[in-house]
């Protein structure tokens, strides 16, 4: 066994998320790479929560269909997921809660309720029972959990710590004593593995913002972007950042624009609905040439939609956000590491081009944890020093909107004696006064448009290609958080004898027409993969390059694309028979 999928499910409001994250951290501590995925309804109580963690000694980017160990805190967990169980799957449940329907799994009845009752422990402590037995199954020493409990419950007092330890030890011992035959020995502690950190896409954005010297962050809570706000707020006194939870999203973005005008790096964040309220101000940043990083984490829309689920349905809206014509850069990382790397780049780009840069995420990326070698981030941090482009602290005869060849005029930090200027939302002359003159207008439009040319020549990065495109018949084209599932699918397809390559776009807008078109017009079977119903990136590719990718895997049920869905699609006989390069418009709707 190279991968192990652990899953827990239970009622909303009873700590499934904390338990899942603890398991991810423990697995990482004992040396494994993890990827996880938390599903919850948009309710504080009353719904069903689940948490999948996959672990492997090699980096892993997506969960798998088969569950190896399922911890059922309630009946729903078992019933909803039994189609993912095999005869080798281990299921832990409490007979006092429910009787599972017929199956051929390795069933372990563990008396959660009794253990809690006998120890006068509260319901939430179930979670440490779950962790205790899980560690035992994986043959990891109890000590790791002991430390984790110490760390997690430190601020709840000694007696809470002690009780949690006791309960979890009981569960651990219960497995060792009664079900030693189920214990798995394939995942020993990896002593020599690199130290790793566990972080979500949102964590990555937040810490990268700190790394990039962002000094002000403004937001209004909105799933799935809210944890950026709370993480940055929690660290504010340490980092010195000012974090403002404003009255609405319009205030949010204008607060950030005000700070940016003053000369500090600033960012704001939301999801589609909140971002929609900001688009007038995005346009303002465009004409007034104010640097701004906007974190935009998609969830399935339209409107309130499915608040706690995932989709890539806002791409075209984001790309075209704001009235009028102005330069804008949209970056869409594929995993937390890329989120970190592209976020620090985004702050540089915003300063460099003095225009809004949007970091586009989605619930799947924003809230799924991945383990990353700490060293990789350390190296990244060490290599990075903020490049603020043409930000200047002194000037003479200063002209804010000077008409320069690359379109980027020097930007003076306000307050410098002897000078003054406006940051102007009206069309303006080079010296920043309002104008309605036709000639001045054209000068400024051309100047702003030239920034896009400069970006394409200087900072646009081509998509990364995974697999050998020359040797591959099948080429996946995708962007953003689909990366993980596609990478894992490529591995599986290799085993099945398919040669595939994967063109992974992160610099999704603007695109360099000629360079991109060349990549997409080879004699290959291209498959566009998107987590939306309209193939929005495909449309954008067509708009910007003329290339029309006709074979598409589109999923829009509010769930991310799964590895097996891609594998099955390619592996299906219907696909194999269509050997010609031109395949008629075929859209797969996966749920």
């Amino acid at each position, binding site marked *: 066994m190279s991968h192990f999928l652990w899953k827990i499910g239970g009622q909303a409001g009873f700590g499934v998320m904390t338990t899942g994250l603890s398991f991810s951290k423990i697995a990482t501590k004992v040396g494994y790479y993890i990827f996880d995925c938390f599903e919850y309804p948009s309710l504080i109580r009353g719904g069903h929560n689940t948490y999948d963690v996959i672990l492997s000694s090699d980096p892993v980017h997506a969960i798998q269909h088969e569950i190896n160990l399922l911890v059922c805190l309630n009946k729903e967990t078992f019933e909803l997921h039994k189609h993912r169980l095999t005869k080798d799957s281990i299921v832990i449940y409490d007979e006092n809660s429910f009787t599972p329907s017929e199956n051929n799994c390795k069933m372990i009845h563990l008396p959660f309720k009794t253990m809690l009752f006998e120890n006068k422990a509260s319901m939430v402590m179930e979670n440490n029972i779950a962790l205790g037995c899980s560690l035992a199954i994986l043959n990891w020493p109890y000590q790791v959990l002991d430390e984790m409990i110490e760390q997690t419950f430190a601020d709840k007092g000694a007696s809470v710590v002690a009780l949690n330890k006791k309960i979890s030890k009981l569960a651990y011992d219960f497995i060792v004593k009664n079900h030693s035959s189920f214990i798995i020995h394939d995942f020993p502690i990896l002593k020599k593995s690199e130290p790793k950190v566990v972080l979500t896409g949102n964590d990555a954005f937040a810490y990268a913002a700190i790394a990039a010297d962002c000094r002000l962050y403004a937001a209004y809570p909105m799933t799935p972007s809210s944890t950026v706000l709370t993480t940055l707020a929690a660290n504010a006194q340490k980092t010195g950042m000012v974090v*403002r939870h404003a009255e609405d999203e319009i205030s949010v973005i204008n607060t950030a624009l005000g700070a940016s005008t003053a000369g500090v790096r600033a960012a704001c964040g939301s999801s589609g609905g909140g971002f929609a309220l900001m688009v007038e101000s995005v346009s303002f940043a465009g004409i007034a040439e104010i640097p701004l990083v906007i974190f935009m984490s998609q969830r399935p829309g339209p409107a309130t939609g499915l608040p706690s689920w995932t989709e890539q349905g806002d791409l075209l809206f984001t790309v075209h956000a704001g009235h009028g014509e102005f330069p804008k850069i949209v970056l869409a990382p594929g995993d937390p590491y890329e989120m970190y790397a592209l976020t620090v780049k985004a702050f540089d780009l915003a300063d460099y081009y003095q225009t809004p840069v949007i970091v586009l995420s989605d619930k799947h990326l924003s809230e799924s944890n991945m383990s990353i070698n700490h060293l990789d981030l350390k190296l990244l941090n060490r290599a990075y020093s903020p490049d603020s482009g043409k930000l200047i602290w002194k000037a003479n005869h200063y002209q804010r909107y000077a008409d320069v060849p690359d379109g980027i005029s020097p930007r003076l930090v306000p307050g410098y004696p002897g000078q003054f200027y406006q940051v102007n939302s009206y069309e303006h002359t080079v010296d920043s006064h309002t104008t309605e003159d036709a000639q001045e207008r054209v000068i400024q439009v051309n100047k702003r448009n030239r920034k896009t040319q400069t970006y394409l020549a200087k900072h646009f990065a081509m998509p990364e290609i995974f697999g050998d495109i020359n040797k591959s018949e099948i080429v996946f084209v995708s962007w953003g958080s689909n990366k993980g599932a596609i990478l894992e699918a490529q591995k599986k397809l290799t085993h099945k004898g398919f040669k595939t390559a994967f063109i992974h776009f992160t610099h999704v807008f603007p695109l360099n027409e000629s360079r991109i078109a060349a990549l997409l017009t080879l004699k290959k079977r291209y498959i566009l993969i998107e987590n939306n119903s309209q193939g929005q990136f495909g449309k954008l590719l067509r708009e910007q390059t003329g290339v029309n990718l006709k074979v598409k895997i589109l999923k829009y049920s509010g769930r991310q694309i799964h590895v097996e869905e891609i594998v099955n699609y390619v592996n299906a006989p219907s696909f194999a028979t269509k050997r010609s390069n031109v395949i008629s418009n075929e859209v797969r709707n996966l749920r």
Partner: protein
Amino acid sequence: MKTIPSKYEQFTGYSPTWCPGCGNWAIGAVIKRALGELGHDPSSIFVSFGIGCSGNMNDFLNAYAIHGLHGRAIPTAIGFKLANHKMPVLVIAGDGDCFGEGGNHFLHAARGNHDITIITHDNSVYGLTTGQAAPTANKGYVSKSTPFGLIETPLNPLALAISQGATFAAQGYASHVPQLKSLIKKAMVHKGFSIVNILQPCVTFNHYNTYDYYDSKTYLLSKKHDPKNKQVALKRAMEATSIEKFPLGILYQVKQKAFHEQLPQLAQETLLHKERFTELDSLLASLT
């Protein structure tokens, strides 16, 4: 803050395009004088302008400035202040801007006691868009957008500010120049959220709230008025709504820490000037 008066002419930018007789002329001149008397120069202050006839002052008043979006002058001012709290920050905007489009920001900025001074040109119309009724217009007011008379009762800016946490609330009148200047200066010196609501006749579109109207409906707050008494202040403020009387002067003022003064992050240096945080590796170590 500097205290040697500076020459106010240095604030003079383009010639105003306001209509002859408009209350904005006086306000524009008073602001320059007030700034000069406080010792400022165009490089030492920051102004966030609204969009409107009032906001058009952006080209007439020299200063580091933002001429942002209609209704959003307040949050940009807050953002600027948080980033560089050593620079005095003014908002100059219309009543449509501050109380209509931007009403929510006004309300919440007051709660936050952000150290900004808001100068509202209260002319009861949307001047720049040719005279539709603004939030402070009287019930029954006839305008292009309300040809059969406005149905809403007027918004009360000062009651709004005072009841929701402002620490300085004053009212001036475009033709009471000396008092207006002193109000603006006091508002700027005040640490925390300050508003000076200025009654400003729009001679072109508003034929109700005229100079004559305000001459007869305004009165100076008596010397005995205690600006620390919130309840009395509210009562005075409400007169605009209840009996169409407009007190002039400082209705309310209390000392409270401004928003930025409550942020330990800003205790030593401005956000703009402090050292970059670099202890990233240790922060990340917590993610294990």
